[in-house]
């Protein structure tokens, strides 16, 4: 030990033994502090339970821990936990706390400590919904959902009182799916409100709701809805299976629902219909489809979805069948123009001018005189400008976005003609295409056509009208190969189901639409009063 300070050595040895004792103590605390999920249950020791609760919610300024004595001074110690902002403070302070403080002291003394929650639940919590839990994980999940947790000394059961007051939007009409003379209810961000909206419109007890929680972090509640006795059970089982199969951390948006439900998640075309309208969901359910609602999202996903579903709106069923049929034909024309106009323009001006009537060709050629670019470059320039305008308008407030769109279209277009960058005919083609794009009633269906537009332009540039036909053949082949929850996407056109054509490109009168679409293979094929509920009770 030569050369070593004895005092320093003793100090180090002492420190080592102190650290060993601290390590042992910490090791003893670990089981208490560690959150073990469902495997670990509350012990009934209030101090220990309070520490567990703290470790469960973590360092969180939003969490309120309110110690109190049930029955007042000399009563039973307890702790109230809740998240600030998620609960009704007034209800806690004006109803629950006075009730807890005024519990007679002898009442809790007469029952075993482990049964105190029974007395509290039965007689001293003047709230509609009071649940109990013996699991930390479920208690913490309920806490996050706006419940108040009550831990009582000696009782291992946690009382969960529903005092949720979650901020949410009121029920409004969806901006993207507006309708004249039709219902104006749209979904909100809260699942239970949305379920209530659906339930209110479906008087039949045949409506089934199956809730599943998905997302390891978000723990989002997902509700699957169908009509028992109408919807094919295989479809329900398939939908539930796909949702349960999800094991990711986040299940936040309808796009997540779409991803898990789609037969081919990488498909360009949407295979799940999304709507914000309550009545759309009701109609889909009544037809034999399945609706999936997600907490925190003001929209529902409808499956199976066919191609025609994306071109049918509430307005179609509010208006007369004459009006609807005309509008649907216009939509079909709009679809054709939105997809093919630029391609046809490129094909006719670059590859197949012999197919253009002479005077029209003179006009086209005349409009092109002095333009330095080939039609393909013109089209690319204009559509890039259009996409920029569209993207810019989305980021701006509504009124400014509209102004930008109008000003952009007029000023930029006019300036480009004057500058000789594009021809006047090109402006017409682009304008018609851009307008025709908006005839697609469903937002999610516009994206595929906007992408395929470029494919058509490239095909037209390469092979002219023959290229357009070739690309169309590939497109149709692809479309008929798609399925949504196993149902052919292009039904009733491919496979052809003549009976279902009554509500496709045109709409027949309601009297003629007596049966549900055969592609859905609904249990009850005829439309009519909902069948009696299955005594077995919605087990999918």
């Amino acid at each position, binding site marked *: 030990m030569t050369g070593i300070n004895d005092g320093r050595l003793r100090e180090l040895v002492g420190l080592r033994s102190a650290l060993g004792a601290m390590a042992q103590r910490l090791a003893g605390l670990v089981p208490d502090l560690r959150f073990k999920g469902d495997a670990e249950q509350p012990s009934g020791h209030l101090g220990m339970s309070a520490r567990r609760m703290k470790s469960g919610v973590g360092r969180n300024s939003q969490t309120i821990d309110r110690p109190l004595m049930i029955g007042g001074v000399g009563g039973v110690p307890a702790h109230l936990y809740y998240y600030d902002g998620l609960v009704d403070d007034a209800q806690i302070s004006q109803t629950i706390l006075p009730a807890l403080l005024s519990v007679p002291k002898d009442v809790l003394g007469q029952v075993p400590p482990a049964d105190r929650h029974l007395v509290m639940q039965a007689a001293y919590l003047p709230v509609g919904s009071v649940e109990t839990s013996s699991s930390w994980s479920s208690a913490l999940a309920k806490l996050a959902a706006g419940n108040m947790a009550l831990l009582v000394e000696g009782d291992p059961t946690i009382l969960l009182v529903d005092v949720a007051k979650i901020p949410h939007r009121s029920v409004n009409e969806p901006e993207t799916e507006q309708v004249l003379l039709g219902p104006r209810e749209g979904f909100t961000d809260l699942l239970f409100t949305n379920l209530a909206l659906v339930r209110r419109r479906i008087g039949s007890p045949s409506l089934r709701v199956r809730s599943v929680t998905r997302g390891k972090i978000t723990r989002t509640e997902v509700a699957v809805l169908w009509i028992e006795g109408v919807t094919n059970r295989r479809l329900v089982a398939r939908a539930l299976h796909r949702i349960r199969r999800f094991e990711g951390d986040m299940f936040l948006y309808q796009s997540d629902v779409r991803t898990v439900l789609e037969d081919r998640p990488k498909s360009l075309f949407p295979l799940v219909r999304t709507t914000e309208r309550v009545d759309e969901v009701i109609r889909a359910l009544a037809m034999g489809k399945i609706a999936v609602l997600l907490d925190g999202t003001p929209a529902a996903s409808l499956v199976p979805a066919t191609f025609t579903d994306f071109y049918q709106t509430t307005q179609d069923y509010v208006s007369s069948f004459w009006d609807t049929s005309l509008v649907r034909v216009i939509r079909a024309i709009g679809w054709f123009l939105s997809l093919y106009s630029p391609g046809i323009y490129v094909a006719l*001006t670059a590859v197949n001018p012999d197919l253009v009537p002479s005077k029209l060709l003179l*006009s086209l050629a005349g409009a092109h005189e002095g333009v330095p670019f080939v039609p393909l470059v013109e089209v690319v320039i204009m559509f890039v400008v259009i996409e920029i305008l569209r993207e810019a308008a989305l980021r701006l407030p509504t009124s400014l976005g509209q102004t930008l769109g109008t000003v952009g279209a007029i000023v930029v277009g006019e300036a480009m003609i004057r500058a000789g960058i594009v021809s006047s005919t090109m402006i017409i083609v682009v304008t018609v295409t851009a307008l025709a794009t908006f005839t697609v009633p469903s937002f999610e269906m516009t994206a595929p056509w906007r992408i395929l537009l470029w494919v058509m332009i490239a095909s037209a540039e390469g092979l002219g009208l023959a290229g357009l036909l070739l690309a169309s053949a590939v497109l149709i082949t692809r479309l008929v190969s798609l399925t949504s929850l196993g149902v052919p996407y292009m039904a009733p056109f491919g496979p052809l189901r003549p009976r279902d054509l009554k509500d496709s490109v045109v709409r027949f009168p309601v009297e003629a639409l007596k049966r549900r679409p055969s592609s859905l293979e609904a249990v009850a094929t005829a439309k009519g009063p909902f069948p009696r509920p299955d005594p077995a009770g919605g087990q999918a």
Partner: protein
Amino acid sequence: MRTARLVLSLLLPFFLSGCWQDQPINDRFLVFSLAVEPGRSGGDTLWTFQMPTPDYLEGFGNSGGGSSATGTPFFDIQVRDGTFSGAIVKAENRTSRDLYMGQLQTVFLSTDLPASRLRSFLDEEGRTGELDHTEFLLATAGSASKAMSTKMPQSPLPSFVVTEHFACPGCAEVRLDVPVYEAQSAVLEPTTDLALPLVEPSSHGYTIARVVIYRDLAKAAILSAKASRGWAWIANRIQKEAVNIPMGGGKASLRGLSGKTSYAIKGISRGRPYLDISIRGSAILSGLPPGVSRATPSVSKAIALGASKAVRDEVASAITEAKRVGSEPFGIGTRVRVMAPKVFESPASWREAFRRLPVRVSVHVSIEGTGSRL
């Protein structure tokens, strides 16, 4: 790999067929009209390509239909060459842009064009992929390029006048249009000779009322107006002819005269075959002769008989002129040979047989109504 093969096999026909030719219209001159006539030197043909000027096109495009299109509407490029394709190449070498022939609408052919060169043009035209073979052929007795450039009051581009006239099948009394594909099939048909409408200068540009008939693609005769109508009757090209019938020191008039012509070979059993041409037509009475105030049945009958005689005369005139020059521009031969294959065994001999064959023409015109009662 399978997908790549599939895509390749789908695209291959297009690449092999040359469908992908891609040249914007503003990089080409759009040829609307072509004149073909013999060149000054013996073996050459003079080709004149007519196309709108860029200035005119620009005005046309910016005014939405040409109402304010200004400047010289068209310009010509003349080249001499023995072949059609050679002429196109030469013409392209003399311009800043390629020629686009896919919109060719009219071809003016000089009646002096030798048969060999006319045949060569029709053959080459049929092999040229860019053309759609629907352009109209017109014959000119004088300079074809001058006739092609005749100013027409109806349109700055003369070819438009012809195409608009011909493109409306119900507009003309007599359909004289001959698209190039019809001429090409006539050339291939050994029993039929070519007949083309004749362009003639007039005070309003030019008129098209007569027909040039060919024999083995060489001009045989220019039919009179009367015979041209007779040719149209036999070829079922009459649509709504207006006819004046001399009666009672004045004229009765019919309009909307149209009918159906049928042929038959009769008298075979007697060993004296003859061609029977039967025409059944109908018309609307539009004017009575002087001194007649009402279209009584007897008056109508007399007028109908007069009309029948007029049509018969027209048809007879056409047959007489065709027989005189040894041409068969009616297309009867094909059908007649089917009717009597033993009599007319050799297609090559049909033209001679037609020359000797007696022809009986029977015409029955009925009056369907008057001008006031359609």
